[in-house]
């Protein structure tokens, strides 16, 4: 793998860029793999990368039904943070954040991880209490957090609505400075290039359509490009988990829902942080290209459609204007949807499954992008050792049966409320 650097850019420029090599191969699939990861999103690719890098397993395939990075990895609002309250989540997401901090150099691919700070606004005393609890917990876990009052927020983000005609005035906010955004596509591409260079076969346009089982084990993975024998199988297909599981008669505590996202016309820098609204569902940041990238709630009904409907858009935009009135005359150029793997307690499931050699990585709800490197790290560990890493022990599938849910919002077994 030719190293990416400024020197190489200059060198190649004099060759009219004719000498750049492929970022990843387009290999003919082999007959058999030690580990097959299904889904070439960030999680699948990171899992393959860390399986190869940390655990020395090289005979790995990542199967992707479309183009790599085309799932939620390629369509999310790219917020990265580790501001969780419950221990099972907090330590895991913090590990992930630490991996983000070194990901570009680890991959030799600039994923543009931009630690611009994530601020959650609070509008009532009870919300202040809630962010106080969360922030304090973070600090005791060794994670950075600051509580800002209205004055401090006003200084940082004068464009928020501090006027008198505001329905839910801003009372304070919780800031995680190490949080921020990353360039989503670059994450997928950088991971693909790095995994590929360690010998991982990334097979695109290869949809998994079934399995063959012997005993309590998957022996063959059937795909649109033929059948492969497998040692172990990992699911990393996000919103498609329910469907894939149904191919092997597995029912999971997951529902698929659409989440929409939006981008505005490109603008000169105006929003320098990630800001989330507390009196409605809305979050916004500005991409390096200049587009305001924002989103809100899911569309509420089960869906595999990757497209949403207008009522939710109206709701998101209304919340957006309540937070930043000056957005009103700006325009959106595009909006799209992704299919979310909403779990029953709002937290992910990473671990073993009822089938001996099948491992699950799902239930990311709308927060799995930030988990990408961490998820790969612990999933690779779980697959390689056939037991969970210390950081994903609590995020197992059995927790629902046992009454050990990891429910940050306390919303209960209603996936669309998380």
């Amino acid at each position, binding site marked *: 793998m030719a190293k990416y650097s400024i020197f190489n850019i200059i060198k190649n420029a004099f060759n009219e860029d004719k000498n750049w090599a492929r970022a990843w191969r387009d290999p003919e699939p082999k007959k058999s793999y030690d580990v097959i990861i299904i889904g070439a999103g960030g999680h699948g690719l990171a899992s393959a990368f860390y399986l190869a890098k940390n655990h020395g397993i090289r005979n790995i395939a990542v199967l992707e039904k479309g183009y790599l990075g085309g799932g939620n990895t390629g369509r999310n609002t790219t917020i990265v943070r580790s501001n969780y309250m419950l221990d099972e989540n907090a330590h895991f997401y913090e590990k992930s954040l630490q991996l983000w901090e070194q990901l570009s150099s680890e991959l030799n691919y600039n994923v543009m991880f931009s630690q611009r700070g994530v601020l959650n606004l609070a509008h009532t005393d009870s919300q202040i209490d809630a962010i106080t609890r969360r922030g304090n917990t973070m600090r005791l876990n060794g994670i950075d957090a600051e509580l800002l009052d209205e004055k401090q927020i006003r200084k940082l983000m004068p464009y928020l609505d501090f006027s008198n005609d505001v329905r839910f005035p801003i009372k304070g906010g919780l800031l995680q400075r190490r949080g921020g955004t990353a360039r989503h596509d670059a994450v997928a591409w950088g991971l693909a290039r790095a995994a590929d260079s360690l010998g991982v076969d990334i097979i695109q346009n290869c949809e998994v359509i079934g399995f063959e089982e012997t005993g309590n084990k998957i022996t063959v993975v059937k795909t649109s490009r033929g059948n492969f024998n497998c040692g172990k199988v990992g699911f990393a297909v996000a919103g498609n988990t*329910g*469907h894939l599981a*149904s191919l092997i008669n597995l*029912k999971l505590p997951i529902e*698929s829902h659409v989440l929409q996202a939006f981008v505005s016309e490109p603008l000169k820098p105006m929003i320098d942080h990630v800001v989330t609204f507390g009196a409605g569902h809305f979050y916004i940041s500005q991409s390096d290209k200049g587009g305001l990238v924002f989103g809100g709630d899911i569309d509420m009904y089960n869906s595999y*459609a990757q497209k949403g409907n207008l009522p939710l858009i109206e709701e998101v935009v209304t919340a957006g204007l309540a937070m930043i009135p000056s957005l009103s005359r700006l325009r959106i150029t595009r909006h799209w949807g992704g299919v979310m793997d909403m779990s*029953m307690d709002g937290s992910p499931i990473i671990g073993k499954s009822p089938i001996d050699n099948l491992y699950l990585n799902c239930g990311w709800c709308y927060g799995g992008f930030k988990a990408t490197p961490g998820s790969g790290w612990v999933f690779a560990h779980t697959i390689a050792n056939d037991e969970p890493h210390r950081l994903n022990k609590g995020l197992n599938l059995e927790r629902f*049966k046992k009454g050990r849910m990891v429910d940050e919002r306390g919303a209960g*077994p209603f996936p669309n409320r998380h």
Partner: protein
Amino acid sequence: MLIINCPLCGPRDHAEFTYVGDATKNRPENGDSSNDHAWYDFVYLRDNPKGLHEELWQHSFGCRCFVKVLRNTLTHEIIATGMPKDNLILKEKGLELSV
């Protein structure tokens, strides 16, 4: 917008409804520990199909009835609607169940 044909009120925007979810789940008897799995299944597990999904919506801004909807989760096409006791999938096959 999904336009849902409320069996009572007629076609309405889905924004008038509250989504409840999978309508195929049957609430088990409490029973003893042999029912534990049935309960786990009822409360937590979902078929989550890609394709036809029988689901419940409450017409909360209208007649407040719970309405059963047969919808394709891939295309969002609504194939049929009815009351909670109706079996829409059978109806689709023309084999309406008399309840």
